């Protein structure tokens, strides 16, 4: 791998569970020093993709290279250099968190527990408590600490903020930005759009086992356009809005609502032939965009 090559390189990755398709022909590159968000509804294939990258699942076909190494054959070498936070995990319930984390640290071949103590302080995690006695949020913190404590250069996380309170989430985002500033690469799945919008550089959207779009967040926002809502004085024929770039059209009698992903001028000129009672234009949020993406058959 060259220094500028992708940290994670996924080519035509397919994973089937018997007859069930987990992910289909997925291509994705994740570059050094970026935070890549991985968005999709439950069951879309996010966890399958992540667990296949980590060699916890055997891929059906395709290729995954991490640091230029083969995800299956060089799995041990890869795992030396990555931290992983599973979406659903457990630890040894009877043991204090410190004991567990030290054990996991030793599995990584890492002895310095300074970063571990520091992370625990930062996220207000009591290392002396037994893991089994922790709340959901604190268990999640223990998971986060174990993913970052060995100073790995690539961190893969499956829904990392699940269970964290809003303040802690903000702290976590801040922490991610700091990690990125240090050159760490982060690949995280999420179904919280605000989270991806706030912290990620790029986003990959997956639906029904297939990757729909990979885009920079800022470019995506630009592309997203706006929501236009118009009220006419009488019922309007939907064919009026037969314009390239008008999406998600909903016509309800005299009212029409649509997403404008083209030049607004075209639309305004077209509707000016009708009498307009009211008109409003809203900036589209990523959240709405996302919902639109999911509601469109085939994802557009």
């Amino acid at each position, binding site marked *: 791998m060259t220094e500028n090559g992708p940290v994670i390189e996924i080519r035509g990755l397919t994973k089937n*569970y018997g007859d069930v398709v987990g992910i289909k022909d997925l291509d994705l590159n994740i570059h050094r020093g970026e935070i890549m968000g991985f968005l999709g509804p439950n069951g879309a294939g996010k*966890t399958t993709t992540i*667990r296949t990258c*980590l060699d*916890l*699942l*055997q891929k059906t076909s395709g290729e995954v290279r991490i640091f230029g190494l083969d995800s299956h054959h060089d799995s*041990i*070498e890869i*795992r*030396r250099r*990555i*931290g*992983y936070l*599973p979406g*659903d*995990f*457990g*630890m*040894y*319930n*009877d*043991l204090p968190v410190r*004991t567990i984390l030290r*054990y*996991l640290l030793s*599995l*990584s*071949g890492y002895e310095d527990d300074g970063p571990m103590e520091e992370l625990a302080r930062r996220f207000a995690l009591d290392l002396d408590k037994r893991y089994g006695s922790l709340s959901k949020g604190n268990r999640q913190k223990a*998971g986060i600490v*174990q993913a970052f404590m060995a100073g790995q250069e690539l961190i893969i996380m499956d829904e990392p903020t699940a269970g964290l309170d809003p303040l802690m989430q903000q702290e976590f985002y801040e922490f991610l930005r700091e990690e990125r500033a240090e050159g760490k690469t982060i690949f995280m799945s999420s179904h919280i759009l605000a989270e991806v919008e706030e912290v990620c550089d790029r986003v990959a959207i997956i639906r029904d086992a297939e990757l729909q779009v990979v885009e920079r967040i800022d470019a995506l926002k630009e592309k997203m356009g706006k929501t236009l809502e118009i009220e006419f004085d009488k019922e309007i024929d939907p064919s009026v809005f037969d314009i390239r770039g008008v999406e998600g059209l909903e016509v309800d009698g005299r009212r029409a609502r649509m997403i404008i992903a083209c030049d607004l001028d075209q639309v305004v000129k077209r509707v000016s032939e009708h009498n307009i009672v009211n008109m409003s234009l809203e900036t589209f949020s990523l959240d709405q965009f996302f919902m639109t993406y999911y509601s469109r058959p085939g994802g557009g």
Partner: protein
Amino acid sequence: MELRTNWKVLLTFLAVVSFLVAGMVAAWPSMGTAFQADALEGEENVSVELEDLGDTVKVHLQWSPVEGADNYTLLAYPQPQMLVPERAEGIDTESAEHLLEKDEGGTPQMYFAVVALVDGERQLVGMASSLERTSVYEETFGVDMSRVEGMASFMWDLFWGLLMMLFLGYVAASTVSRDFEERKMDIILSKPVSRRRYLLEKFAFLTAYTALMLLVAGLVLVGSMAAIGELSEGMVAPLLMSSLLAFPVVLLIMAVGTLAAVYVQDGRTAVGLVFLFVLLQVGINLVASMAEGLEHLSSYTAMGYWDLDAILFDNVYSVGDFVLIAAAALAVLAVAVLVFERRDMAG
């Protein structure tokens, strides 16, 4: 980590094993009479002499005369509870002969009763048997429970030999499947630990525990026998070996448990499979020991090689057999590693 998470259960089982062995030995002398054969009714009145005729044995019976007896009747049957008339009534002398065909074990067991006819009424003179009487326990289980060896054999066979195998099979199956069920596997295997290393380290731990447990059980057995003053010098080695030689058998059971766990990745099913494996072996051995002509079946099971009677009574055991079983255990473990390396981890 195994020790840190399982030490309570493992230590408890070690204590239970020690307690049961010592307790069984301590209770044994007071049960002594129960293991001795019941006396036959009037056996002092009938004497038996055997005459070896090659393929047959002639039994000479002689009894004390009964006053006023018109004649005598001789009854015979292989079990003492079901004697049937052997010969027409009317033996005039105080003696009779009975011919027995030899079987595999030489002279067969046959019970006799002599009945006198006095004034038209039947009256038991006495009973006798062709062989020295064995206790009900010995007849049922095939070991003489009044002997130290028999007691040890009985204890292993029917008591906690089974308990130990089920327990260690359970521990082996559940220690791996628990990591799946408690969702620890993803984190552990995201560290630079190969699946092979993960599995072998667990197995090595269990192997060490098994060796320790068998050693403790053997020492407690010898120690408690010594404590009740029943330990002869020659018995130290057989008693110790009776425990230690279970090692490869347990190893095989644990390997099967490990294989089941990595294959099904579900605790209940894995434990069920290893229990099935243990109980199947016990069942086959039970059938082999009870049904005539099926003795060879036990040689198809690992447990069959843990031949307690040979170890305890004759102090003989085949090192080759045990190496073979240990090798089988390692082969099963190797399959478990291969399966584990190729399977998706349940998430």
